[in-house]
């Protein structure tokens, strides 16, 4: 992924794709559809394959609940990552740390200081929002490269987490919170899945069905055009950073409630999978554009693959290979098919 704001990497594939859509209708409709639903098709193939391989376990309610529930924290974080990325501020790296900070503030206040759990949650989200404001100050106000600034803030926040926690895991947070996030279920799925779904619906609606979302798209595609069209570019970018930090804070609360104890390295393991899901999602639904629905599909596609391989006996750390490979393959496939169609047309 590129750090330069003007050149969003995954966008290119779709642009080229739709370019051919203009020249040749019948085959391009087919191909656009193929690309749009490629992940869903592979998703379905995976489900069927795992279902055949391990019918008793993979196709169980328990497994579905596990897949949907276990990925809720990542899913919420993905919604956070989506916001600055869609506006061309590629990679807010600090969002993982914001998640960790929020979780750790909650845990320290609740466990070590006995603060009321609701207050502790608010404090955690507040701490994450502060990180977002710092990012806005340095990225938007001073017009710095977001990659470099958030690399810095990520490191700083990680250091603060170590200081606050004394480099220890902190737990166990109030079971009351855990009940309302993780333990209680609706339709056999932990409640946190529905929280994530609610956040998704809001993000999806705003990005896809309001002028604000359309403007975000313009900002992400061409910031100078947006500026000269009278769009409040800096204001929208600022909101993206702040809201993203807030959502990452919520993801931190969900993390703490799910795990009970908070590890100082909590967020750093999640941030790269979150980016993988966002960029993988950009190849689906609206190919070439980072979009919320695509990200939703990508998260659960990756989660399903991981869960399936685990049931087949693979160690959980194989999921990293699956994540990385899925991302690389997904952005490469459209180019491969284009080459092949090009050759076939030539031969005909």
């Amino acid at each position, binding site marked *: 992924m590129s750090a330069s704001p003007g050149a969003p990497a995954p*966008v290119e594939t*779709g*642009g080229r794709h*739709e*370019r051919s*859509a*203009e020249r040749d209708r019948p085959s391009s409709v087919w191909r656009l559809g193929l690309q749009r639903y490629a992940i869903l098709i592979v998703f379905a193939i995976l489900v069927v394959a795992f279902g055949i391989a391990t019918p008793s376990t993979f196709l169980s309610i328990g497994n579905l609940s596990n897949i949907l529930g276990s990925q809720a924290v990542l899913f919420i974080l993905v919604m956070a990552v989506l916001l600055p990325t869609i506006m061309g501020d590629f990679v807010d790296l600090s969002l993982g740390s914001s998640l960790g900070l929020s979780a750790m503030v909650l845990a320290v206040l609740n466990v070590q200081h006995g603060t009321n759990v609701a207050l502790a949650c608010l404090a955690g989200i507040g701490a994450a929002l502060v990180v977002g404001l710092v990012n806005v100050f340095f990225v938007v106000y001073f017009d710095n490269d977001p990659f470099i600034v958030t690399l810095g803030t990520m490191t700083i926040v990680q250091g603060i987490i170590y200081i606050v926690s004394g480099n220890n895991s902190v737990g166990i947070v109030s079971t009351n919170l855990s009940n309302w996030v993780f333990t209680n279920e609706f339709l056999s799925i932990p409640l946190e899945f529905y929280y994530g779904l609610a956040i998704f619906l809001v993000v999806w609606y705003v990005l896809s*069905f*309001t*002028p604000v979302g*359309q*403007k975000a*798209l*313009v900002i992400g*595609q*061409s910031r*100078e*055009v*947006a*500026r*000269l*069209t*009278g*769009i*409040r570019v800096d204001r929208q970018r600022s909101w993206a950073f702040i809201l993203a930090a807030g959502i990452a804070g919520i993801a931190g609360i969900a993390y703490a409630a799910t795990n009970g104890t908070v590890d100082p390295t909590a967020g750093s393991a999640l941030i790269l999978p979150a980016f993988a899901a966002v960029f993988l999602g950009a190849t689906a639904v609206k190919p*070439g554009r980072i979009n919320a629905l695509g990200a939703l599909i990508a998260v659960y596609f990756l989660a399903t693959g991981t869960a399936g391989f685990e049931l087949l006996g693979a160690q959980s750390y194989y999921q990293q290979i699956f994540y990385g490979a899925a991302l690389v393959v997904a952005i490469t496939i459209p180019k491969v098919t284009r080459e092949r169609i090009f050759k076939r047309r030539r031969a005909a």
Partner: protein
Amino acid sequence: MEEQAPQASAPPAVELRAISKDFGSNRALDNVDLRIGNGEVVGLVGQNGSGKSTLVKILSGVYAPEPGGRLFVGGEEVPLPLAPGQASEIGLSFVYQNLALAPGLTVLENLTLGQRITGGVRSWAPINWMSEHRRAAAVLGRYQVKLDLDQRTGELAPVDQARLAIVRAAEDLRRYRTRSGYKHSVLVLDEPTVFLPEEEVERLFDLIRTVVAEGAAVLFISHDLVAVRSITDRVVVLRDGRIVAEVPAGEIEEQALVDLIVGTAARPGGSAAAEEARPVEVTLAPAGPDGAEDAPGPGPGQNVAVGNLSAGRLKDLSFEISAGEILGVAGLIGSGAEDLPYLLFGAHPAISGTLRLGSGTLDIAGLTPQRSVRQRMALVPADRQLLGLAERLTLWENIVMLVEDEHYRGGVFHRGELVQLAREAVERFEIRPPQTHGVTATFSGGNQQKALLAKWLIAGPRLLLLHEPTQGVDVGARRDIYRFVKSAATLNQTAVLWVTTDFGELAEVCDRVIVLSEGRTVATLTGDELSDDAITAAALRQIRETR
């Protein structure tokens, strides 16, 4: 070689014979002969589109001339076209207006790295910065240029950047002469003075004289006739691709030179208008050929007046545009005309000035694009790809960008209405192919430009600011764009500001043209006075008078 012996004792440094160049049906150069003797400074002048840059591009190997053209360097024929990079191997060196310096690198790096890249030193040989430093200091010393070698080039004054670029080019030539043993070499300077203040031009000339004393010949291309007359030995005038005069620089008056450049057809009427300060009263009525029949007179609250605008090169500039009028702004590069649309839109910061738009008055220094859009101003920038359209979005998304808020009601974004709106615009603005969902980058330049115009015009602007609106646009689309802008002016009473260096275009579409020089209005032309030649004459004359 023998046949030119009677002409001169030594062969000319460069000689071009029978050079022609066609672009489609348009003949840009027609049988041009040009000789530059050793140690000679030759000025090349001509209006925009006269073929100057085409000639330079043939010399630098960018264009291939039509068959029959020949090039002699130091008396030996070199086959045309030149391969890219070949020019430097036969003793030709170029300094363009943009200077081609890397602003982030130091003076030393700019001076030495180019030479390493273009050869001479093995690319894997380690760099000894101490000795590079000494050699660079010696080079600067040779041309009597004092610069801090460790300073970032971008921090230098413009004149020092120009001098650095010239030193670098001259040093390339000197090395070429030493290496090859030839006497000839030619430094081509393309508009080197446009961004320089008057008093600094002289410092540049000192350097050019030093370069000539070292043994190079110079081809000096400029609009600045004062500069051309003071530095060159001989002036070559190009008009419509032909050489119309070759005269010793000391023997021709500037007025005569202007006449040669624009042709004898240039009427003295243009100069009469130039003497008047600002004949506003003549021009307040919309005088366009189309506007005359159904213009209901200036609509209330739609006149535009710019007062005392100062910013960058613009000094205390005031002018008015009536509702429905197309005002052209002409000026040579460096006149400040090209900044005007961006300043009025708030895209570039201004120091001071007022903009009266209908009944309201805005402070130009406090303008932002957001405010300008709210005031229903529109900017069509020259850089369509970077500033005008989001190329990776679809056509409809670009076209409706300004009006999408109006189609979000009760929490529902009426995308269908927007697509319908865009579809109608595609129809009305004759965008081909009419694929509203096509990615913008896939459309041709002319169709993109129509889309850009559509984007702004469907928002119903009160003031339309155009900068080079037909740049990179084919002839058909160019006609269409003229038509769309004229009808917007006539039917919607939009005030239009049209800035371009294509003076023929201004003469064709504008009701009135103001000519800027050194940031001031120096001439106003209307009605029958409007012609390509008259505008050029006014622009050239003013450089002479302000110097």
